[in-house]
């Protein structure tokens, strides 16, 4: 996973609530077996139909911070939504709130999600200068002179700053996992590993 430290960029104001992952990347674009190339179809409909959509405007080209309303990323669990956002060069999404699965998926791809109150979000959406996001100090500063602290889970912060993957962390507990399974498997269960009376019918 890519490390995240700090970035400075213009913000893309997305003045919408409940942005669902079907909006971020419609299902028609999910037939690939790779993690790459989804950025071209990020917000596909809005980019196609609305010339005023911020991502269609030259001044936001190359911007790395997206600022949206509440419940961003609701709906489908598709991690493709995160891949589309990161593939388009966006490194931070700031919103009033996020949907759970989207939040989890982002953390696993080095995409920093920051939750800020409505007033802060609205101020940042109006900022046409640059905004600096620093994870170490958990601050967002705008060239307009606004400064906001944000909460961030310490474990997730440690992983993001170090570019660490959950998988290695979980694997470090392999012995505990194995003894958990031994202790919790019952004879009548047909799903999972032995020991059990009947042979596995699943494999």
């Amino acid at each position, binding site marked *: 996973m890519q490390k995240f430290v700090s970035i400075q960029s213009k913000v893309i104001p997305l003045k919408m609530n*409940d942005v669902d992952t079907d909006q971020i990347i419609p299902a028609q674009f999910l037939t690939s077996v790779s993690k790459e190339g989804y950025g071209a179809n990020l917000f596909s409909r809005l980019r196609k139909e609305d010339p005023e959509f911020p991502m269609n405007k030259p001044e936001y080209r190359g911007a790395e911070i997206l600022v949206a309303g509440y419940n961003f990323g609701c709906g489908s669990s598709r991690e493709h939504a995160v891949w589309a956002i990161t593939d388009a060069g966006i490194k931070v999404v700031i919103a009033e709130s996020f949907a759970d699965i989207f939040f989890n998926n982002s953390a696993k791809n080095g995409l920093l999600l920051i939750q800020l109150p409505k007033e802060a979000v609205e101020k940042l959406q109006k900022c046409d200068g640059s905004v600096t996001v620093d994870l170490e100090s958990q601050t967002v500063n705008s060239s307009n002179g606004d400064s906001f602290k944000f909460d961030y889970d310490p474990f997730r912060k440690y992983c993001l700053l170090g570019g660490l993957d959950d998988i290695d962390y979980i694997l470090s507990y392999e012995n505990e996992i194995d003894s958990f399974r031994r202790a919790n498997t019952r004879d009548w269960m047909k799903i*999972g590993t032995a020991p059990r009376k009947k042979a596995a019918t699943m*494999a």
Partner: protein
Amino acid sequence: MSAKKRNIVEKIWDAHVVVEKEGHPCVFAVDLMLLHEVTSAQAFATMKEKGIKIKEPARLMATIDHSIPTRSDRTVFYDKAAETQVDTLRRNCKESGIKFYDYESGNQGIVHVIGPELGATQPGMTIVCGDSHTATHGAFGALAFGVGTSEVGHVMATGCLLQSKPKSMKVEFKGKLGKGVYAKDAILKLISEIGVGGANGHVIEYTGEAVRAMSMEERMTVCNMSIECGARAGLVAPDSTTYEFLKGRELAPESSDFDEAVAYWNSFCSDEGAAYDKEIVIDLDALEPMVTWGTNPGQAIGISQKVPDFNALQGSEKEDTESALAYTVLDPGAPIEGTAVDWAFVGSCTNGRIEDLRVAAAVIAGRKVHPQVTLYVVPGSESVRKQAMEEGLDKVFEEAGAQFRMPGCSMCLSMNDDRVPQGKRCVSSSNRNFIGRQGPGSITHLASPATVVASAIEGRLTSPRAYLN
């Protein structure tokens, strides 16, 4: 001192924590992972790149549902990328020793339909899938939730996930469902009350007399849409209805073991007086058939009600309502009933089970689909399809002018060829009315299968009540 009273969410959680360390998410054991073609290929690829073997293939089962055609010649793909995706899953499962329910296995179908059918879904289990409607399995008293592809990989590698303890929410459905009102209407009512983010961070336990009276199919419909109010999962405590459903199914415990299993399953039910982080009561006695008017499942009203008038609203609610109505091309303040529809869809992991097809067939038997409407009936699985044909439901649909198709997700998310054309309006038994969900430019009204079929007959949104005996 007596032990702390715990609810079902806490009990299943506690029983699956492998490692708990201050300041860290828990290492959390997953009992069963379901795979489908769309969200698994990248996880298999990551495993290969990292040189990690799948830890317990016997905890995984796979099928194809999202991107496959539902035509009778469904092995022929018009979309070559989708075909590659399906072949990739087939190959990956073979290489890793994962049970794969392929075409003609008799069990292929929507992943959330086949898990319960096979008896794989059981009380007290933790179940994940790279799909947000995994909460469907919660109907059996399992803690089941959707994960992204990275987490699919974590479960492949370790059988575990990193998870933080969810909050709990109790939803009590009081009263009885009236004529023409179904589980789908109950869940749409809840979502309309609390909004699409109303349960973010929570796992819902559905309780109350209405839930106890529901069949397993109905409970699955309710749990299925938990994600539509933002819940991580939704579940129903197991009871005799659950156990009767499970008995004799392929992956359920053998009959000689069943009593032991039931005793174990019962231990997960919430303690009397257990606390929840949030509680809400929904009275179903006066509920009427529900239908959505906007672009998310929370934007739903009773069929006799009027579309909201955004002029009477303020702030972001006004803007959101105005933009939703602009997309759905409805007049503010107009009655929703009578809105002309072009397409109708019965199917999906929400309402593609045999009971749903029976209800739909009962409404349309001896009647005709409106000449301007195309009605797709897509069974949730091969087994549902077979059962429907044994009961002659296929004939009922075909004689009415509907298309009775092969199983899959179909027009719920329109990843395959089944799409509502640009600008056309569809009344649908699926779970999301997001913009473009059923095809670019399509407009969706979510409703129960009975409402869908009644509307298909009249060519306009209508209550199914007049069509029921």
